[in-house]
């Protein structure tokens, strides 16, 4: 199964190159990838409920992360949708963007997304799933920002990335909590992240269970655009239409729903899960449907109705009864098909007329008959009109609601209301542009010139919508095709228990069936009436929506973003003053304060800081007069250099100080250090003389008392640190080991040198690289300046 993910990703990498060789034909080749992968997966999808094809390979055993994949009813259905719609969208994009100079990027990006999305649905490991989850966010970011020269596209891409990225972080945190809860429950490390194992484990008693649940739900909601995190999805409509059709209606936005469905066996018994999903889903379903009515842009209408449907699916998973799960399964597939078709039709309309404004479109049936037929079929499916697949889904949905006592009535009302909107909008989106009298939406003004010149879309742009729409009709007429092939397995996977599905177009004459049918008919009628009034109300609704938009979550997002930038700006200006001395002061003060803290806390605990110093052995305590004199000379040299007013005397005094320190090294058994120090001191003096004889002498401002105090205090801290090291009792095993090995192992008697060139040679290599870089840096600084000077001189 890993191959089915890697192949699209690999082909995505060579896609730009393929495009250069084959030009526009490359897209046909790319479309073969999802066809092949989809066929391979379709042949392996298990038919029986709860059957699954598992595969696992080791990835990071230290962390218990396995490349584990699972193909069952749920992931199989998703994989087929991803591959099927992916192939159609690739073909569509090839024609739709024929003239776009960046077409070569589109194919690769779509395949990248396809691979990531396949990985997401097939993963059986929480963390592998997370990796693919983030990869889809990245692909979505790149695709939304595809027309990156437009500010609007960049903003929308950023918005989508920030919202879904923040959700992704919540998701990761939730996964980690879940993983540790599972480890506590006694699962071995390599099993604690396996979703299929977790589903069979009862973790509800663990204290991390509910936090994990909340975080994961938050992540899923951000991806599936649940209120109030929905606002990025309508903005994402700045992406090219094939992208909207694929990512932002059929597949990626369903990743959140997928995750909820995937984890339903684990969380399904929790009351928090029920309430959270049902309420959020219901609210999203209704509000988004109403908001959709306030739009006039075809794609934005479709985006809001997508949000509404995602709400419905979330709600159904939250309800969690057998019927609700069946309804979710059917509705999810039906929606993916008709919504992708509708998006492609919207793209074709724009392609033909140059506008997506619903008010300017009309009477296009003659010019675009095939697109019109697809549109009618897809819209009827969306409206839930018989005999389309959407109708089957809607019937189940109503039945699921009726099944639930009191809560059911409320949900039924909410769903019916949302449905009325969706029906009206389906008609407005897919019927009006084709069959309206030749005037535009508002019935006044001339038909726009673009509508008169419109022409039928090219074949690749007809194939997608038509196939998907006819598919909807076919499955609607013979619903048994779906339930036997995938439906039962999918519903069982979501429920975590065998759920047999038997879909019917006509439920016979029973009170329950008749109620459902009655509600369907009433909803359709109301929807049609609303559609007729919608044009008149459009301006009012749009005004209300615009007012809501000013206070909505999108506004909160904007404020948060500007606030973040402003405060970052302020903090930078506060801390990055550009004053070197200020930085040094801050560093030293932090050093002083933290050391004081350490000393105080030790004193409060009654721990002696340097007890060993008192009992230090003889060698440590003993001192000789010549050593003391040497130390005093070093001190004098450094102090004199500090106080001296001229460069030359300071350099001389510093040189002397360095040589005296070399003597100190020699006294305490470090001949190599002494020699090195002497040589470096000589070179330092030469260096400083060469540099400084060109710089003016400058009387230093009198040092501030506070600065002197800070320096002295910091010096005292450092002295204290040296004293504190006496209290450390470091095991000298490494040193002893190296000393023992030097002669027999490295054929050298000078252990310091053996360490430098043999035992720790890699460190030394790094260090001489630094030396080389500094040398070249000096050279570059001087030579570049000289060259510029010379350039100025000649010009």
């Amino acid at each position, binding site marked *: 199964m890993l191959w089915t993910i890697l192949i699209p990703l690999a082909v995505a990498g060579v896609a730009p190159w393929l495009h250069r060789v084959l030009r526009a034909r490359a897209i046909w080749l790319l479309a073969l990838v999802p066809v092949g992968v989809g066929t391979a997966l379709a042949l392996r999808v298990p038919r029986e409920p709860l059957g699954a094809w598992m595969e696992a390979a080791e990835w990071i055993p230290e962390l218990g992360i396995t490349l584990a994949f699972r193909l069952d009813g749920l992931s199989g259905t998703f994989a087929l949708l991803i591959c099927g719609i992916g192939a159609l969208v690739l073909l569509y994009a090839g024609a739709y963007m024929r003239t776009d100079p960046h077409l070569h990027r589109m194919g690769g990006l779509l395949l990248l997304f396809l691979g990531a999305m396949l990985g997401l649905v097939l993963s059986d490991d929480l963390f592998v799933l997370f990796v693919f989850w983030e990869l889809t966010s990245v692909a979505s970011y790149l695709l939304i920002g595809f027309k990156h020269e437009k500010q609007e596209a960049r903003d929308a891409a950023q918005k989508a990335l920030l919202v879904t990225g923040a959700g992704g972080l919540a998701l990761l945190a939730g996964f980690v909590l879940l993983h540790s809860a599972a480890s506590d429950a006694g699962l071995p490390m390599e099993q604690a992240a396996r979703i299929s194992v977790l589903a069979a484990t009862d973790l509800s008693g663990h204290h991390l269970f509910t936090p994990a649940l909340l975080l994961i739900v938050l992540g899923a909601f951000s991806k599936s655009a649940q209120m109030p995190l929905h606002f990025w999805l309508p903005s994402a409509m700045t992406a090219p239409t094939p992208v909207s059709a694929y990512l932002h209606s059929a597949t990626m936005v369903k990743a959140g729903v997928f995750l909820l469905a995937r984890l339903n066996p684990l969380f399904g018994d929790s009351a928090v899960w029920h309430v959270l999903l049902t309420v959020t889903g219901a609210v999203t379903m209704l509000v988004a449907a109403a908001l959709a009515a306030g739009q006039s842009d075809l794609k934005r209408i479709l985006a809001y109705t997508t949000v509404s449907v995602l709400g419905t699916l979330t709600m159904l998973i939250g309800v969690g009864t057998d019927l609700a799960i069946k309804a979710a399964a059917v509705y999810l597939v039906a929606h993916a098909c008709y919504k992708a078709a509708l998006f492609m039709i919207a793209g074709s309309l724009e392609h033909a007329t140059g506008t997506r404004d619903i008010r300017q479109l009309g009477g296009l049936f003659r010019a675009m008959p095939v697109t019109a037929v697809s549109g009618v079929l897809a819209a009827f499916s969306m409206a839930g009109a018989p005999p389309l697949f959407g109708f089957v889904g809607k019937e189940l949905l109503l039945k699921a609601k009726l099944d639930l006592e009191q809560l059911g009535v409320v949900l039924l009302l909410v769903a019916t209301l949302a449905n009325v909107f969706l029906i009206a909008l389906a008609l407005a989106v897919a019927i009006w542009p084709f069959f309206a009298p030749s005037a535009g939406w508002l019935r006044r003004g001339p038909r726009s010139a673009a509508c008169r010149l419109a022409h039928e879309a090219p074949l690749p742009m007809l194939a997608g919508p038509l196939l998907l729409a006819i598919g909807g009709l076919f499955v609607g007429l013979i619903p048994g095709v779906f339930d036997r092939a995938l439906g039962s397995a999918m519903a069982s996977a979501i429920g975590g228990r065998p759920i047999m599905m038997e879909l019917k177009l006509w439920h016979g004459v029973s009170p329950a069936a008749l109620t459902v049918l009655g509600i369907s008919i009433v909803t359709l009628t109301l929807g049609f009436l609303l559609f007729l009034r919608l044009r008149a109300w459009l301006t009012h609704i749009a005004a209300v929506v615009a007012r809501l938009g000013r206070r909505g979550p999108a506004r909160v997002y904007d404020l948060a973003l500007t606030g973040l930038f402003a405060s970052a700006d302020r903090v930078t200006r506060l801390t990055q003053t550009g004053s070197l001395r200020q930085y040094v002061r801050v560093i030293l003060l932090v050093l002083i304060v933290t050391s004081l803290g350490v000393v105080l806390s030790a004193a409060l605990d009654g721990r002696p800081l340097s007890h060993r110093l008192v009992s230090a052995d003889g060698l440590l305590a003993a001192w000789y007069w010549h050593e003391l004199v040497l130390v005093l000379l070093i001190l004098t040299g450094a102090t004199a250099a500090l106080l001296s007013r001229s460069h030359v005397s300071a350099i001389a005094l510093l040189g002397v100080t360095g040589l005296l320190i070399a003597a100190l090294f020699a006294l305490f058994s470090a001949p190599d250090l002494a020699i090195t120090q002497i040589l470096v001191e000589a070179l330092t003096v030469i260096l400083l003389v060469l540099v400084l004889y060109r710089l003016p002498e400058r009387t230093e401002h009198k040092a501030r008392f506070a600065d002197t105090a800070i320096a002295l205090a910091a010096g005292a801290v450092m002295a204290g640190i040296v004293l504190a090291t006496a209290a450390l009792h470091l095991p000298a095993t490494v040193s002893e080991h190296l000393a023992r090995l030097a002669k027999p192992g490295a054929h050298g008697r000078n252990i310091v040198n053996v360490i430098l*060139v*043999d035992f720790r040679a890699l460190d*030394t290599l790094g260090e001489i690289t630094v030396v080389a870089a500094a040398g070249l840096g*000096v050279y570059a600084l001087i030579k570049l300046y000289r060259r510029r000077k010379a350039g100025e001189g000649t010009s």
Partner: protein
Amino acid sequence: MKSLVFQATTRAVTPLLLAFSLFMLLRGHNEPGGGFIGGLLAVAAFALYALAFDARRARALLGVSPQTLTATGLLLATGSGGAAWLAGQPFMAGLWLSAALPAELKLGTVLLFDVGVYLVVLGAAALVLLTLREG
């Protein structure tokens, strides 16, 4: 600093210093010395020469550009570590020729590494000082 005495002394001392630097480099594995100390001694010789005469003559004495020396040294040090790979050992593992040379000196990749250190220190420090002396 164009003092004749200084120049004459320098002329006499420089070859001695350079020879001594090589001696320090080679004996470094057994007695105090090594690539760092040897390199610094060599730089001191060239710095002295550059002070007594000028940077141009010091460069002529050096023969190759300091940049080349630095790069050669880095390559030599890295290469001596990489040689272990060819012998199927981890990077930087020391390899030794079995034939023992007189005066305790044994030929091995470790010595090459030390020569690399010597060249880098010499090249980089000479680059700094000569460039400054010219400017």
